[in-house]
């Protein structure tokens, strides 16, 4: 029982972590709280539903197309809505992000209807045996995929040229431009990577909760943002730790029979962290030069 709860916490936390990574990367590079990030997951879940339930294509294709669609939507959102506002006040970009989120949610509602769609199972495998324990296969897979994605992301950011460009742009956009870095394509790349992670998160979410609805991204996205802030926005390990924290907190509140309060607990956790340590666990302080 205890093991199951721990695994549940790990699974939920991993999904939050994947989504939080997207928030953290975008925030790190253009200081934008991308409100639409959660809704990208919704897009991914709907694509999976479309591919498997409507077109009857194999799950592998559903996974690939979901991730591809999320990546595309993420980059598109940046190009259409955020890029024209690169030099605008932060408030304007933030409101635009809210607008995009609103657009995706209501667009999905218009196209697919307000009621939830059932996403078919990606695999028939429901349990695995590990060290004599029977564990839920989606849970184990979610945890493994998250570990792999985090390691891959860390390598990309630390070792590749694009990663170096990303770090440079997040440090100082103007200076990076002067150093010959193509800032716009770097930002697009960041959105692509973040959204691809959201796509993976979408598949894992659909695997766990087998449904897609227009507003699923909002709460998921908000909590993932909470996770990113908890861990310290802009920090990759922070996003993972924050995601796991939020996941475990929710599972714990559920386990002690207070499930109706779980949203309140997560948000309370956020408020407490912001008050005590506004930069989060791994965050660094940023202050305006006087």
């Amino acid at each position, binding site marked *: 029982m205890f093991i199951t709860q721990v695994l549940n916490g790990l699974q939920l936390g991993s999904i939050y972590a994947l989504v939080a990574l997207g928030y953290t990367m975008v*925030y790190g590079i253009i*200081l934008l*709280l991308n409100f639409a990030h959660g809704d990208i997951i919704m897009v991914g879940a709907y694509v999976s539903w479309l591919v498997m339930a409507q077109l009857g294509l194999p799950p592998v294709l559903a996974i690939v197309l979901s991730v591809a669609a999320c990546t595309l939507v993420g980059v598109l959102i940046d190009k259409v*809505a955020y890029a*024209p*506002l690169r030099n*605008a*006040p*932060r*408030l*304007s*970009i*933030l*409101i*635009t992000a*809210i*607008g*995009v989120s*609103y*657009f995706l*949610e*209501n*667009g999905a*509602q*218009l196209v697919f209807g307000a009621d939830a769609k059932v996403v078919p199972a990606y695999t028939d495998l429901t349990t695995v045996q590990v060290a004599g324990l029977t564990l839920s296969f989606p849970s184990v897979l979610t945890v493994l995929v998250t570990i792999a994605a985090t390691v891959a992301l860390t390598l990309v950011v630390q070792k590749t040229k694009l990663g170096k460009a990303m770090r440079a742009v997040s440090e100082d956009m103007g200076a990076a431009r002067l150093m010959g870095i193509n800032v716009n394509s770097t930002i697009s790349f960041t959105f692509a990577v973040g959204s691809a992670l959201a796509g993976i998160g979408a598949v894992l979410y659909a695997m766990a909760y087998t449904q897609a609805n227009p507003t699923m991204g*909002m709460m998921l996205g*908000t909590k993932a*943002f*909470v996770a990113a*802030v908890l861990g310290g926005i802009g920090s990759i390990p922070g996003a993972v730790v924050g995601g796991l924290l939020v996941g475990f907190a929710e599972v714990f509140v559920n386990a002690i029979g207070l499930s*109706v*309060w779980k*949203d*309140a607990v997560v*948000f*309370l956790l*956020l*408020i407490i962290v*912001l*008050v005590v340590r*506004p930069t989060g666990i791994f965050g660094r302080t940023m202050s*305006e030069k*006087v």
Partner: protein
Amino acid sequence: MSEKRPIISTGGRGPAAGGARRTLPMPARYAINAIVVLVLLVLGELMISGGAINRYQSTVLEQVGIYIILAVSLNIATGYLGQLPLGHAGFMSMGAYGCSIFIIRMSEFLGVGARDFVTGTPMAFLIVIGGLIVGGLCAAIAGIIIGIPALRLKGDYLAIITLAFAEIIRVVMLNIDDVLGFELTGGAAGLTGIPGFSSFLLVFGCVAVVCFLIHTMMKSRHGRAILAIRDNEIAAEATGVNTTYYKTLAFVVSAFFAGVAGGLYAGCVGVLQPAVFGFMKSIEILVMVVLGGMGSMLGSAISATVLTILPEALRAFSEYRMIAYAVVLIIVMIFRPQGLLGSYDFSLSRIIERVMNRDFPWRKRNDAPADTAEEKEVSADV
């Protein structure tokens, strides 16, 4: 001052050259505005009692008034203070529940029947006013509780913390009865039995009072401190503005009026459900402020009116309404980020003064800013 020599000579041409402007004395300005408001209120009431505006239309009008209050109150925090709270619906719900519970309990206690609220006996009126103030205070207290931690944070963090707080309020409203055994909010089923106390006169009376109070606050040292923080927080601090105090003040006043609007909302719809006061409601109010122009009360009021009436008029297209909202929001941000009216605000007195001075827009004005270009030239010559 023995000698007042300018750093840069400007040739001494100023607005005074054209003779003193004729201005309206302050009492006259307020009197004119008060009369106009009274006339409009009486006119509206006559149209309703005379049947020119039917029951459905007057309900929509009440909604318009409520959204105007919500928008102008959010505008304090967004347009004037320059922050982005995303939990305005949370304050609204605090006010709605606070006001309703007060009114229900008080009318039980004092034996005032639901009928009295519709006919409007003096006792019922007093209870309603008391309820609205209680609602405002509930919201203001919530505003202090969240404002003090939230306002230490900047921009997005503030947005997210207020959003989180509004969600907590919603969850609490939803579950408090089950957990603590109270009979306060009615949980998910909703709070019923709220007398329908809102009326055209009450709502728009409140609109007038709220707009007046916001106007007077902003045109005082307190309002200037708030604007200074928006324009440059570091400079404001260095100029002696207690930024924590004034941020909290703006936030709390904003919450208070949202609470009053919440109370009126309760009296208008008669039943409260926590789900109504979700994130979407906060966004709806924010859209009104942003479209109208952040920092413009008139803009907020106009867009609140349009965005409340339009969906009613276009019920057939209600599916597209939200999408249109989103698209309009994005387009406005990209092409006119300051909102439709920017920070322009309407002033009846200013228009009257212009007429008195025969200073019409189509006439070339001889004002101080015209000197700007000249001074630049001079300083370049030296």
